Every structure is written in structure tokens, then in C-alpha cells.
């Protein structure tokens, strides 16, 4: 493209201005991508297909109300159900109150069948099934407290007035939430004095297509009982916990959009200035015979190039930064989804075009004679 040299030379005309504009667009896209990544990370987690045939059955009134452990038998007898694991939250702390992390008890028999995506080693699974005080721990928690396999630890109860003593027999891997610790529910039941209630009963359905059918069957089965149930896919179940953060995510998205909008205005002002300075030159090009559309295209290309360079710097910077420091949460490593790269690219294109379109089309269409007369 023979006009490319002209575009580049025009960008180099005021290097400082070009660089400042580029940097402000880069910074805004950096902030934008970082903020927009947060909800996207959660959404990706919730959409994880590995969990699509796992459903959670809990009290209709809320998880904390509990459901009778006896429901397990009825659930296991339901068609298409492959595995059933009851779970009760313990919510203990290791030493300090600040040492909180997700820990809970589960029925040991079908852990492997329920969570194949946790990739628990077969020998660890076997130890878990044989040792009543066994615990499986996610890698983040292992690292955080310096745990090692075979270590005996004590978790202090916060909900319950007792502590549990556990032996670490293996680690949770794969797609398991890296901060989780699970131990055996029969052990918890024993120290609790066997109240016979559980928080959640996890159900593995043979095929994802049968999930709706199983959900209906379970909830109808327990309708009009003392504890009516609400059964939902795993994604929706965790979604309830994350719902509390939704407002925060919305805010983050809004902030990201506002930052981009503000920088868009700055870029528009810069484009207007840089084009106004060149009114006579543009009129000269047109007097030579450059068509309006060519001039418009060149002016837009300038602005677009700055915006895309800003995208490269800001967005890819954020991408690489988030790659290198993975922030661990319950949800897992926070990484910028590739989709955000594309969204930010579209935003950059928008900034580039919209900021320049008004002054550029005005300059490309302005009366040549008047524009030439303006200097003389």
C-alpha cells in the first residue's frame, strides 16, 4: 500500500503526542482487560463442561438448612444416577482465624466416581477409603501451610465446638478447586453425634442429556416432605455462591467501560487537534487530486494504528502479566481469557475509528478554496 509511508510519516510528525496517546490507550485497555477478565474467569469456570453431569441436591430453603442423609438411598435408586456423595461443610481453621480455606467432609466410598476430574491418585483414594481420619488436600492449601503427605494436622472448628485431627493421605489435582480440603463425613458425623443431616448430596448422572430428567425426578420425589429439595447443575450451584460477587463484577465491568470511554474522549480530542493543524496540508492534497475517501482512509488509519499499538501494549501486557502471576482463589488461577483479548481488540478499533471519524470526515470534505485561503 503506497499510502502507508505517508500515514507513518504523519504519525511521526509529533512523536510525543503520538506516544502519549498510545500510552493512554494502552493503560486504559490494560485496566479494561484486567477488570473485564474477572467475571469472564468466573463465567468460564461455571461453564466448565467437565462438571456438566454433576448435580447438587440441597434444601430448597438454602444449603445451610440441610437435608436428611437418608435421602441418599432414594437418590441412588433413581434412574440414570451413577454415584451419590453426601457433603457437610466443616469450615475449620488451621491456626489463625485468618487461615480460612474451604474444608468439608464427604462420603468416601464414591469420591473417585463422583470427581474423576480431580484426578486423585488410586493409592491416595484407597487410603482415603480405609483411614477414617484421612484427608485429601488441594495444591494451594498444601503450599500455603507447608503441608506434606502423611502429615497429621488439626483443624479448629468454627461452626462446631470441636476440632478434627486429620492425616493427609493425598492431593487433589486436575480441575479440583486448588484450595479445597476434604475429609471423611463418617468421621465428622461421629464427633457431631450423628444428627443425620447433610448440606448437599452430590449426584453424578450417567449422561449430561439426562440431567434435567434426574433433577425433576429428585425434586418431585422429595416434594411435600419435611425437607423439600432444590437440585441444580454444579455450575448453577457454585453460581449461587458467586452471586454475591456479581455486583462487584458488574462494577468492575462498568469501571472498565468508563475508563475506555474517558480515554476515547482524550483520543478524540488529540485526533481533532492533529487534524485541525493539518487543514491546509489536507486541502493541498485534495487540490492535487487526492479523493475524499483516500484522505479519510489515511486519517482513520493513523488513529487506528495508534489505537492498535495501544492494544498490543496494554492488553497483551495485561495478558502476560496475569499469566505470570496467577492469583489463586476458590475459583482457580485468574488468567485473562483469550476472548478478552478479542474484546479489547474490538474496543481499540472502536476507539481508533470513532475518535477520528468526525474531524477526519470534516477535513476530507471541507471546501478546498476556504481551507487554502485560511493560511494566506
Amino acid at each position: 500500500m503506497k499510502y502507508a509511508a505517508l500515514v507513518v510519516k504523519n504519525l511521526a510528525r509529533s512523536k510525543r503526542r503520538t506516544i502519549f496517546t498510545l500510552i493512554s490507550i494502552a493503560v486504559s485497555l490494560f485496566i479494561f482487560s484486567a477488570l473485564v477478565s474477572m467475571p469472564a474467569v468466573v463465567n468460564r469456570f461455571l461453564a466448565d463442561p467437565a462438571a456438566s453431569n454433576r448435580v447438587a441436591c440441597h434444601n430448597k430453603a438454602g444449603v445451610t438448612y440441610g437435608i436428611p442423609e437418608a435421602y441418599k438411598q432414594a437418590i441412588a435408586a433413581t434412574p440414570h444416577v451413577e454415584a451419590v456423595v453426601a457433603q457437610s461443610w466443616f469450615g475449620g481453621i488451621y491456626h489463625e482465624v485468618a487461615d480460612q480455606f474451604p474444608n468439608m467432609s464427604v462420603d468416601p466410598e464414591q469420591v473417585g466416581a463422583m470427581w474423576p476430574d480431580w484426578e486423585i491418585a488410586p493409592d491416595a483414594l484407597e487410603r482415603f477409603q480405609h483411614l477414617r481420619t484421612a484427608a485429601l488436600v488441594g495444591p494451594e492449601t498444601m503450599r500455603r501451610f507447608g503441608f506434606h503427605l502423611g502429615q497429621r494436622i488439626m483443624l479448629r472448628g468454627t461452626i462446631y465446638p470441636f476440632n478434627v485431627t486429620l492425616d493427609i493421605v493425598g492431593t487433589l489435582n486436575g480441575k479440583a478447586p486448588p484450595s479445597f480440603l476434604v475429609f471423611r463425613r463418617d468421621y465428622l458425623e461421629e464427633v457431631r453425634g450423628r444428627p443425620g443431616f447433610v448440606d448437599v448430596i452430590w449426584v453424578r448422572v450417567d449422561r449430561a442429556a439426562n440431567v434435567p430428567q434426574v433433577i425433576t425426578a429428585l425434586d418431585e420425589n422429595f416434594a411435600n416432605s419435611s425437607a423439600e429439595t432444590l437440585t441444580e447443575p454444579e455450575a448453577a450451584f457454585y453460581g449461587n455462591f458467586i452471586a454475591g460477587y456479581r455486583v462487584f463484577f458488574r462494577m468492575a465491568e462498568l469501571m472498565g467501560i468508563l475508563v475506555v470511554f474517558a480515554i476515547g474522549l482524550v483520543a478524540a480530542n488529540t485526533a481533532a487537534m492533529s487534524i485541525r493543524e493539518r487543514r491546509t496540508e489536507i486541502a493541498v492534497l485534495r487540490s492535487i487530486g487526492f479523493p475524499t475517501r483516500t484522505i479519510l482512509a489515511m486519517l482513520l488509519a493513523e488513529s487506528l494504528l495508534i489505537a492498535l499499538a495501544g492494544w498490543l501494549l496494554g492488553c497483551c501486557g495485561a495478558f502476560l502479566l496475569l499469566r505470570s502471576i496467577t492469583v489463586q482463589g476458590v475459583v482457580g488461577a485468574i488468567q485473562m481469557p483469550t476472548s478478552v483479548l478479542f474484546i479489547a481488540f474490538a474496543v481499540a478499533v472502536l476507539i481508533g475509528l470513532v475518535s477520528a471519524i468526525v474531524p477526519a470526515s470534516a477535513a476530507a470534505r471541507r471546501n478546498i478554496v476556504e481551507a487554502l485561503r485560511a493560511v494566506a
Partner: protein
Amino acid sequence: MQRAAHSEGAALRLDTPTPPAVELDQVRRIYRRDEFAVHALDNVSLTIPPARFVAIMGPSGSGKTTLLNLIAGIDHPSSGRVAVGGEEISSKKDRELAAWRARHIGLVFQFYNLIPVLTARENVDLPLLLTTLNKRDRRAHVETALRAVGLGDRMDHYPRQLSGGQEQRVAIARAIVTDPTIVVADEPTGDLDATSAEEILNLLGELNRRFGKTIVMVTHDSRAEHHVDEIYRLDKGILTGVEPGRRRLA
């Protein structure tokens, strides 16, 4: 059709089948400002034969620039007809005019109007970007044009590294590089010292002689009278007379 008075030489050239370089027929250009109407050009008719070097002279505000802009196809007459190289341009649309200018018009301005971020070579290359010439041919054309204006040794200089006279030479090279039908210049010496002005007038005269280029120049500069074939005098938008230049008389 009314013809302006010509010297004998003009009459001779009219015998050739080539159409006149410029033909204006009862051209008016009226600027309306609020209730006032400024008659920048009033009923101007003139014919400039091809291959002439002519000057348009007159007091400030007499309509010289307006006339030049109409010939260059960057302005439209309020009424009347403008033809350049036998082609009527007053009825063309803006888009057609742009393409037409690229082929037929070379423009030279008082303040040179070079693009400051481009070298002499790149400035002269600009009109060629609109042609289908490839890079090598463009380069050859640019170098020929720059040598023709005596700047063979300044091709890679930026405008700020050149004197006013040299900048105007680059502008002239830019105007002739596409080999246009006609070169129009609005006070090309208006911003130059006496020596540089003389050099530019000599250069334009030489281009006219060597390449047979029609040149229409607006000027206040009385020195120009020695260089041109005809002088068209304008006053208050009216063509008051056409007289031979000293070059023709000499």
C-alpha cells in the same frame, strides 16, 4: 463566443487544431455573505491558447485567486462555462473534478505548501501516487522533475532544510511531475526575495519554453511582465484588458 484580444502570435497558434488551454465564457463567481453579494468575478470571458505563459494581474481583491481557482477546478462558477484543454469542467461533480485535477492540473501556491514531514522527493511523488505508475517509474519521473527545477542535489532534503526559493522549486516540480495540461500558480514569487523571485520566473519561463507547458500565473510582481506572453488585467472582478508581455515584444 467572445474572444479576448490577441497578439499576432496568438492568432497564428489558433490555426492549429489543438483546443485552447483555457476558455472562460461569461463566468460569474458570486460570494453570498448574509444579505451582501460579493461579485468576485463578473461576466469574465477569455481564451488562453495552449503553450502560453500568461500572468493575471490586478489590485488586491480584484478576483485573481478566484479566477485561478476556477481554472484549477477547485471552485465552481456561479454561472458561465469553464473549459480547460477543450474539456468543460464547470459541470463536473467534485469527485470527477478531483480525478480530473490529478491528470490535468499542476498547482503552485504562494507559500509553497509542501508537506513538512516529507522530503523533496516524497513531496514530488505525491501526485504520482494517484497514477498507476510503479515505484521505479515514479522514482524516474520524480528525479526528472527535480532536476528540471535545478534541485538534483537536494532530493532528500526536508522542506525546513531548504530556502524559500528552493521550496518553491520543489512545489513547481510537484506541479509538473504528472505532465499536466496546465500549471496554475498563485503569486509564486509573493513570499520570495528579489533574486529568488527572478529565478522562479526564469524557471517557469524555461519550463514553458522547453516543455511547451501552459502556465497561468497570478502575480503582483511587475518583474513578471518581462517573462510572460500575455497579461490579463482584472479590476473589481471585471476583465479590463489583455496586453502582450515584454517577452513577446522582445
